């Protein structure tokens, strides 16, 4: 047959199926990993059992992670977590991470090499698209799709069309992957990649750390994207070396792949970005933010709760104090990140600065606990969403930015450029 070039999304599905596919095809594919958390898994477990399923397709390929209401916020959340625990133990789930052993799934799974390049992954959490940074076709589904995939090891997809985003240029100091993706969502809108694959490439992606790439893929869903993919390169191989639990499979798009559109982004012109309430697309460059006093700053989440994020925050908070009447909440995304932050002295820096540091959890990102906002309060957060009521009261305002802007703003008490805190000239 006449072979059209394939995008990375098409290549990943084709490799799994052993035949070419193209955008628009409806395919049923075996999955390499299925994932659920303490909010979504209990609903899936109820469906799984009600359908009469007696065993999971492969206990090695199911991950169940307690992350959202951890440690239990109240009796009801404790009951939900125990539904997951009972199921995980009964079915000998290999990648079961109860409270204290894991953290937020989207940081944990890449960190432990549980998800690898080339994988097909469905997870009952919208930020499952994070693993696209490894070159894995990973997407969020609901609890019923999770139940079906846990029982059968299969799922169905419409092969998505692809938008190509090509980033070039040398970023200014303090401009990170978070700023790349916030700017991208601003360009295309909250539904700009609805049902589509977002493929991130270009010299500026090549120079980006794996952590920053994970941040970018994490927020593909904020533009409605099905997956947010980066083609594996030397940095991917280095990241996976010593951690991948299964052999990674490195795939690349064909040179003649067909894209719906290709968008060029010169990152050398970007400033740090800030998303205003109440959509991730309402992003402005920092110089156009104006005076925004804050009640709280949150550094953490599956978007920006990694060790590299905490190091940047600590560098800015070292020897400084959080502004009077401002709360700073710092939550490492996994227990491993937490331990390393303790060993490196980062936690001491945070506590000396007046921050509250808690065990790994999604916590305030979704208004769960450990830093929920009251009426009319303003928070700058390193997380991914700022919808009405997302972090608590519907009148509270959430602004999204990088860990560097968050730490600087915590010191200043208002949204502030990191360079200003260090007495550097603002580029």
């Amino acid at each position, binding site marked *: 047959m006449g072979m059209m070039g394939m995008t990375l999304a098409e290549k990943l599905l084709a490799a799994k199926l052993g035949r070419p596919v193209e955008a628009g095809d*409806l395919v049923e594919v075996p999955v390499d990993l299925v994932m659920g958390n303490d*909010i*979504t898994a*209990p*609903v899936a477990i*109820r*469906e799984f059992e*009600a*359908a*009469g*399923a007696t065993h999971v397709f492969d206990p090695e390929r199911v991950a169940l992670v307690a992350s*959202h*209401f951890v440690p239990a916020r*109240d009796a*009801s*959340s404790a*009951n*939900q977590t125990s539904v997951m625990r009972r199921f995980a133990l009964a079915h000998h789930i290999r990648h079961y991470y109860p409270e204290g052993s894991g953290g937020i799934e989207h940081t944990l799974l890449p960190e432990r090499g549980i998800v690898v390049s080339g994988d097909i992954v469905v997870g*009952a*959490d*919208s930020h*499952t698209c994070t693993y696209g940074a490894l070159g894995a076709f990973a997407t*969020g*589904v*609901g*609890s*019923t*799709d999770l*139940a*079906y995939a846990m*029982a*059968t090891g299969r799922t*169905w997809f*419409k092969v998505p069309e692809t938008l190509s985003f090509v980033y070039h240029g040398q970023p200014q100091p303090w401009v990170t992957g978070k700023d790349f993706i916030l700017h991208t969502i601003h360009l295309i809108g*909250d*539904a700009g990649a*609805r*049902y589509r694959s977002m493929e991130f490439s270009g010299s500026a992606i090549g120079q980006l750390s794996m952590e920053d790439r994970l941040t970018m893929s994490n927020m593909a*869903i904020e533009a*409605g994207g*099905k997956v947010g993919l980066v083609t594996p390169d030397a940095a991917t191989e280095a990241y996976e070396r010593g951690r991948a639990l299964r052999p990674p499979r490195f795939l690349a798009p064909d040179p003649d792949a067909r894209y719906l559109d290709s968008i060029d982004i010169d990152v050398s012109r970007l400033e740090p970005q800030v998303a205003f309430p109440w*959509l991730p697309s309402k992003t402005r460059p920092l110089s156009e933010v104006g005076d925004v006093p804050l009640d709280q700053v949150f550094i953490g989440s599956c978007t920006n709760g990694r060790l590299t994020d905490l190091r940047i925050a600590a560098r800015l908070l070292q020897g400084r104090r959080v502004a009077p009447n401002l709360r700073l909440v710092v939550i490492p995304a996994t227990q491993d990140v937490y331990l390393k932050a303790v060993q490196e002295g980062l936690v001491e820096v945070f506590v000396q600065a007046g921050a509250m540091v808690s065990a790994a959890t999604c916590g305030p990102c*979704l*208004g*769960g606990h450990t830093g*929920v906002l009251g009426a009319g309060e303003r928070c700058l957060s390193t997380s991914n*969403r700022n*919808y*009405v*009521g*997302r972090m608590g009261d*519907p009148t509270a305002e959430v602004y999204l930015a990088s860990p560097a802007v968050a730490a600087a703003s915590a010191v200043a008490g208002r949204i502030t450029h990191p360079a200003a805190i260090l007495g550097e000239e603002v580029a």
Partner: protein
Amino acid sequence: MARAWKYGDNVDTDVIIPARYLVTGDPQQLGPHCLEALDPAFPAGHRPGDFIVGGENFGCGSSREHAPLAIKGAGVPCVIAASFARIFFRNAINIGLPVYESPEAAAGVGMGDEIAVEARAGIIVNRTRGEHYAIRPLPPFMQELLDAGGLMARLRRELAQERAAEGGKP
């Protein structure tokens, strides 16, 4: 007579059902909080059988299946919108909550309009304004899934076939 509760673009799953209520999967417990963050008048004033009509990208955000479950629990028979976010759309079909894409209805229906959905005919009737709007047909695969009772009904059939095949072995 069923009324329309009309909202704008990007009605996200956090306003459909805030995360603090996600400690149960029971539609009856979730229903009373449906849309309370967006419009407190909805939980207070809607009647079972009323419709929710949204703009573009309805159900964006989190993958929580609790969102369509809350809508179901609130007694809403279906959601009409100009377009739906991918995960919400899939979840709604999976749990048997009909979702109808109709940019015309999203543009034409106003808050409180009396409407009726004639799914077989593929139209939405607006009695208040005397208008009809076309419903975009579901992709055939999803229509079959919905007609067959959703994804769990399919799983039950597959498991039964598996057991029958195993039972047939010597």
